């Protein structure tokens, strides 16, 4: 409970009444509209279902933030959109730019959403359960994309996931949310070696009938 909420707090989509969320030393909850705009220029979010805008083509979706934050020409935006779609492995489809989100598969929608989030070249990308509802091949593909973007663009990724292989493969640090707190934070190896029963049971998917 609360994983997606954590991400939304980080980007100022939800207000909070206790604790701190700091971005470059500034409290996110106290930011004015201009600072929030700047924050969202640097921190992008990939939503669980992709959250592509239904009424817009893939091109309009991918270039949305560019239109908001830059004065790029249409040609520059087109080139940037193609570059981003190539990066997420959708460049093979020449018509992809003009397709509507409804005509895309689940995996393609997630990748198009990823392309939208990297178009503006953010410093941080927040992923809300990026592999939910995908088949094993697409899960592996998304994991590969996250690692690739970390390496090629140098972005910091914060990935909320239940998918342990993704967690182990994509992360330098893992934090486990347990009863509304993060009591277990460490490298993947440290978390895997943690003797706490809740950590062991969670990462190994152990279920006890008496838990019901």
């Amino acid at each position, binding site marked *: 409970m609360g994983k997606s909420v954590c991400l*939304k707090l980080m980007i100022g989509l939800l207000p909070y009444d206790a604790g701190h969320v700091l971005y470059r030393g500034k409290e996110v909850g106290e930011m004015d*509209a201009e600072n929030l705009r700047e924050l969202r220029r640097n921190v*992008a*979010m990939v939503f669980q279902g992709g*959250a592509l805008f*239904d009424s817009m083509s893939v091109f309009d979706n991918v270039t*949305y933030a560019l239109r908001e934050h830059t004065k790029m020409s249409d040609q520059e935006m087109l080139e940037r959109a193609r570059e981003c779609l190539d990066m997420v492995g959708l460049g093979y489809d020449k018509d992809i730019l003009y397709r509507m989100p409804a005509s895309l598969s689940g995996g393609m929608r997630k990748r198009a959403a990823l392309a939208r989030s990297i178009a*503006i070249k953010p410093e941080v990308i927040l992923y809300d359960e990026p592999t939910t509802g995908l088949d094993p091949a697409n899960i592996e593909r998304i994991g590969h994309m996250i690692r690739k973007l970390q390496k090629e663009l140098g972005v910091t990724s914060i990935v909320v996931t239940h998918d342990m292989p993704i967690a182990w493969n994509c992360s330098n640090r893992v934090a486990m949310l347990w009863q509304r707190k993060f009591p277990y934070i460490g490298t993947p190896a440290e978390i895997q070696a943690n003797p706490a029963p809740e950590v062991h049971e969670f990462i190994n998917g152990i279920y006890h009938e008496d838990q019901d």
Partner: protein
Amino acid sequence: MSVRRPFEYIGEAIRAGFDWAGGISLLLGRSLIRGVQRPWGIYDIFSQIVALGIRSLPLSTLMGVFVGMALTWQFGEALMGFGAKNAVGSAAALALVRELVPTLMALTIGAKIATGVTAELGSMKVSEQIDAIASLGADPIKKLVWPRLVASTVTLPLLNIYGNVLALIGGAFIADLVFDVPAEYFYETYIDELYPMDYISGLVKSFTFGLLVGLIGCYQGFQTKFGTEAVGISTTNTVVATSVAIIVFDFVLTTIFLPVG
């Protein structure tokens, strides 16, 4: 405990009413403050006028013609009993222009616009598209609420003018065909009966209804909770809220305009 229960319900209902009115007022305030800042989003506004207005033309046409015909028939029957069927144009004019066309147009077209807006924004809320707009650094109120608010406020008065013309044509048709009152005569008596304030009263009403319709539609859409069922609940609430608001504001505006003329 059982004696207190009804009072608790009433108290909760009153508080919910105030919450709702407060939320609506806040949304209106924020929309006005952010909407008037550049860029004005002319393209978005124009798109919404097309989406909300042009697509309502067939229903507006039916509404205008049939209201004009029905009312003229009713008045004609009543006036014929007094041998005053020639006054049917004068009798129908005020009722149509000041009351029936703006109110019925708002109740039908307005409800259609408001529910459409709620369903669209509610679906966007459920699928996190509104959060996505904010996360990309844009302002959802400026991008989604402002264009719809302006479009519905502009559209309903325009449809009201269109509906008035059609009601006049429908009335003239019935007057000529059923009561043997020549259409030209019906037209002259109809127009003669109306003063500028009558048109202004109708237009102010439809302007207010347009604002209410857009505001309620957007607010209910933004208030949608989670799940597809929530969109249905929001849409139903929109129909109720829009209808009640139109009827109440119609009464308020009528009491304001009646003494004026």
